[in-house]
């Protein structure tokens, strides 16, 4: 199905199942421990051997020699794979660094060997016996020292630089100016399930049970890496213990399980050990962002400039921190630039809302600073500078843009009017209390997605697509879509995901999964409805599907009858025309946060959080809300504690475990409120939905930062905002 004109009324609009807060259909399995994750397929591949990865001890250089003698002789060892004995391996097209290093080493903890043994204990012990002789080379590890040599590099969805009018002149002429530099650190996905894979070969055919967000991408890249045809690779990934962008591409577990299984001649499973994950896999890159805003005294932005620097390995890509600045606020004269430095740290790559997440961390503090300079309420300043068109291409309007309503609704619900604009004025016992606001913004991406739908003689509708559910609720919204379309209760729908034997979907990433994958299911269901109508002798344009019946006029036939003499199946793909070119499609929101700053210790604790989101049709308010609160929490982590600390002498992330890399725990997070504006976006898809999972993180950290400022009067521009950055600037204790 080609989606190239705005959606009109369709069966989804009935909202009998869609739009309802349906419990997750995978919930009973997940809560009883019976959902099968990648390392747990005991029945599918019995008697597996265990692989354990050896990571490089240096950040850059070469392996002079690897001595495997002791490891090979260790009890239980079946095989050891290194770059030397793995055979020829291509580099996948999606990764920047190779998954198996050697002789050249590209980053710390890059895999250099996998040791395969009878048991996990034996593999782990033998891995310690692998002796690697390295020749370490000097590397570049400090982004701040490389800003001058950094090169322009395009970002996802746009060029490196954009320019409208004469920014320099307009900024110079502006009566109120802000010129500030912000930094965000490297961050880790730190999903709870480590990257894990189980591999089994049947002749030249490889089956990988793995934990992966993008099935088709990974089939292609695994095949490319192993130099085998795609048809020889089967990926199975029905349950994924979190991804956040960290499981978009194949990682060392998948490749080394495959190589280990080939070498050992039996199934092998490999999970990345947690202390290896932080340097071995990808991370969100650190940024340095300079933001300049010029405004008239009445608060109209006249000039806005955003420059961003980030780093990655040679051939890598920059963080798109300037993305939202191209679209979020009005201003006639504007510029953005993106510069990429070459670093020898582990590979930088996508993490939840790549670009906007970091960009909004900076931009939305800058707006708060401007509001203060102007003496205008920060909610009002944002409203004042709203734009209904793409400010770089005013001929393009937004398909939907209700930022103002998000801000107004949130302000009212949060009690924003009671806020003291002057910082440091509110005390509650030992706490200095403050509130902060930030806009939320994340683009909506359209990408084709296919599904197959089958109807059997008992009236069960089965959906098959290689879509993944990384906690997002895909199972449930897909079931809701099929139930709505076919007119059956949700318990008559079976959803099967995460298998490369199924039609290729959008996959999970960039908050594109929900809208696109359900649109693909919609397309397949339209076809199935036609087949059913034809089979039952209805005019498909007139047939209504409801209550397990197909109806038209006075005639009503049970849906199941259509499959009475054999299953009916239909497959289709949703494909998009140029609506996304004609209209800018984005999602909007507003974050409101209250924090306490301890008067003595400067400990920062979040006390209240509210997000208001306008993101098209909300397919399931229960699971969508969960996505938003999860993103809000990750935003709190980014604001207050998350930082991969670089040892700039040796080029690695020092705090490479979950004790050292702190993410929020229960005690850090208060009750969270989320409001969805009632909205449909007919430009996005027949579902009229958009992404929601990443919108929730964009702006949160800045709202926290702004609340800290409001509480304490201390403005911190370097994340994470830890107590040591406030301590010297707080009043005396007493």
């Amino acid at each position, binding site marked *: 199905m080609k989606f190239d004109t705005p959606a009109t009324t369709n069966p989804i609009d009935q909202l009998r199942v869609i739009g309802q807060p349906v*419990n*997750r259909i995978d919930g009973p399995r997940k*809560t009883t421990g019976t959902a099968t994750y990648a390392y747990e397929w005991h029945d599918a591949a019995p008697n597996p051997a265990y692989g354990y990865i050896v990571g490089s001890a240096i950040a850059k250089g070469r392996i002079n020699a690897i001595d495997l003698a002791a490891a090979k002789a260790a009890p239980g060892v079946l095989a050891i794979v290194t770059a030397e004995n793995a055979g020829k391996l291509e580099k996948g097209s999606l990764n920047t660094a190779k998954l198996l290093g050697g002789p050249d080493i590209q980053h710390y903890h890059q895999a250099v060997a996998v040791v395969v043994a009878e048991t996990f204990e034996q593999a782990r012990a033998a891995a310690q016996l692998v002796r690697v002789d390295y020749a370490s080379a000097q590397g570049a590890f400090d982004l701040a020292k490389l800003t001058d040599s950094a090169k322009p590099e395009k970002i996802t969805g746009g060029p490196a630089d954009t320019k409208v009018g004469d920014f320099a002149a307009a900024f110079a002429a502006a009566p109120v100016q802000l010129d500030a530099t912000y930094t965000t650190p490297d961050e880790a996905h730190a999903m709870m399930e480590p990257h894990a894979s189980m591999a089994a070969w049947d002749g030249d055919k490889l089956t990988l049970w793995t934990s992966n967000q993008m099935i088709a991408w990974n089939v292609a890249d695994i095949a490319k890496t192993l130099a085998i045809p795609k048809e020889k690779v089967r990926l199975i990934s029905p349950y994924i213990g979190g991804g956040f962008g960290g499981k978009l591409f194949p990682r060392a577990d998948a490749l080394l399980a495959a190589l280990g299984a080939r070498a050992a001649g039996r199934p092998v499973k490999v999970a990345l050990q947690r202390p290896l994950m932080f340097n071995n896999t990808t991370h969100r890159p650190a940024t340095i962002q300079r933001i300049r805003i010029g405004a008239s005294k009445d608060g109209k932005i006249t000039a806005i400039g955003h420059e961003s620097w980030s780093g990655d390995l040679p051939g890598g890509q920059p963080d798109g921190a300037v993305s939202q600045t191209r679209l979020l606020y009005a201003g006639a004269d504007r510029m953005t630039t993106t510069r990429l430095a070459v670093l020898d740290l582990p590979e930088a790559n996508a993490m939840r809302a790549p670009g906007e997440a970091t960009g909004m961390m900076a931009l939305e503090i800058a707006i708060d600073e401007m509001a203060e300079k102007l003496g205008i309420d920060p909610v009002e300043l944002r409203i004042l500078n709203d734009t209904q068109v793409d400010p770089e291409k005013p001929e393009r309007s937004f398909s939907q843009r209700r930022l103002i309503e998000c801000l107004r609704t949130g302000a009212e619900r949060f009690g924003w009017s009671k806020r003291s604009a002057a910082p440091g004025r509110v005390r509650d016992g030992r706490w200095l209390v403050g509130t902060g606001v930030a806009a939320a913004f994340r683009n909506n991406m359209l990408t084709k997605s296919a599904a197959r739908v089958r109807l059997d003689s008992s009236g069960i509708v089965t959906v098959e697509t290689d879509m993944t559910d990384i906690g997002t609720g895909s199972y449930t919204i897909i079931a809701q879509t099929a139930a709505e379309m076919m007119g059956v209760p949700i318990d008559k729908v079976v959803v099967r995901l995460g298998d490369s034997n199924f039609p290729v979907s959008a996959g999970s990433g960039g908050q594109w999964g929900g809208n696109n994958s359900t649109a693909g299911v919609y397309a397949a269901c339209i076809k199935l409805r036609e087949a059913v109508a034809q089979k039952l002798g209805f005019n498909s344009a007139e047939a209504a599907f409801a209550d397990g019946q197909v109806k038209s006029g006075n005639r009503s036939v049970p849906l199941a009858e259509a499959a009475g003499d054999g299953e009916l199946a239909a497959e289709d793909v949703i494909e998009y025309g140029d609506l996304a070119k004609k209209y800018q499609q984005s999602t909007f929101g507003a974050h409101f946060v209250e924090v306490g700053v301890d008067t003595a210790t400067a400990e920062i604790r979040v006390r209240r959080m509210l997000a208001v989101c306008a993101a098209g049709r909300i397919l399931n308010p229960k699971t969508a809300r969960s996505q938003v609160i999860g993103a809000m*929490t990750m935003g709190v982590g980014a604001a207050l504690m998350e930082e991969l600390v670089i040892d700039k002498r040796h080029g690695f992330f020092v705090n490479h475990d979950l004790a050292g890399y702190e993410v929020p*725990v229960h005690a850090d997070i208060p009750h969270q409120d989320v409001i969805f504006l009632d909205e449909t976006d007919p430009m996005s898809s027949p579902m009229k939905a958009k992404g929601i999972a990443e919108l929730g993180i964009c702006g949160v950290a800045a709202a926290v930062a702004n609340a800290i400022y409001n509480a304490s009067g201390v403005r911190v521009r370097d994340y994470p905002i830890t107590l040591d950055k406030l301590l010297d600037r707080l009043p005396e204790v007493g």
Partner: protein
Amino acid sequence: MDDMRSPGDFKFSRRDLLIVGAASLTAPAVAVTTEPFVAKAEVVLKPAVPGAPVMSKVSFNVNGKTRVLEVDTRTTLLDALRENLHFTGTKKGCDHGQCGACTVIVGGRRINACLTLAVMHEGESVTTIEGLGTPDNMHPMQAAFVKHDGYQCGYCTPGQICSAVAVLEEIKAGIPSHVSADLTAAPQFSAAELRERMSGNICRCAAYSNIVDAVTEVAGSKA
């Protein structure tokens, strides 16, 4: 005693390993011999070759059934459950006591199964997520997690649920917490108490707010 769960558990027996004599190591705590222990230990505890696995027999009760295992002494309770017994509901998130995904209830108390050895649990009783309920017959805590969407990816979920079940018992037993205002008074259930007590269970999807709602509902219905 039950047999071992699947033939896979016998994989060690094919290997040329010294098997630890059962006599000294399988006796339950109450029946520990008073004879000099050390002499016996010396007889049975030498590995065949340096570095070779030392195997030991251990039996403990999992979800109401006694399991007899022959494990490498290095095998954690977590790996014994997941790899030897195929109770994969208990998750390995970090293997270092930093995330709580492996939380199980042993002798009524929640612990991290990754930081304890299987052989240290001779004669003890372990409850895993599978022991609380099944998809068709969920424990009230499991049902509350579904109702309140107290999970997303599901990987930390079994640990959260085991922890939550134990937390309610801990409060009932009068165990104080870091946020209990009065140390000498009996702790009361509250959201703040719950958040502090559940902080050893990290949820990166961050269903925290919903988990608090789920556990609060169960706590209320219990009161």
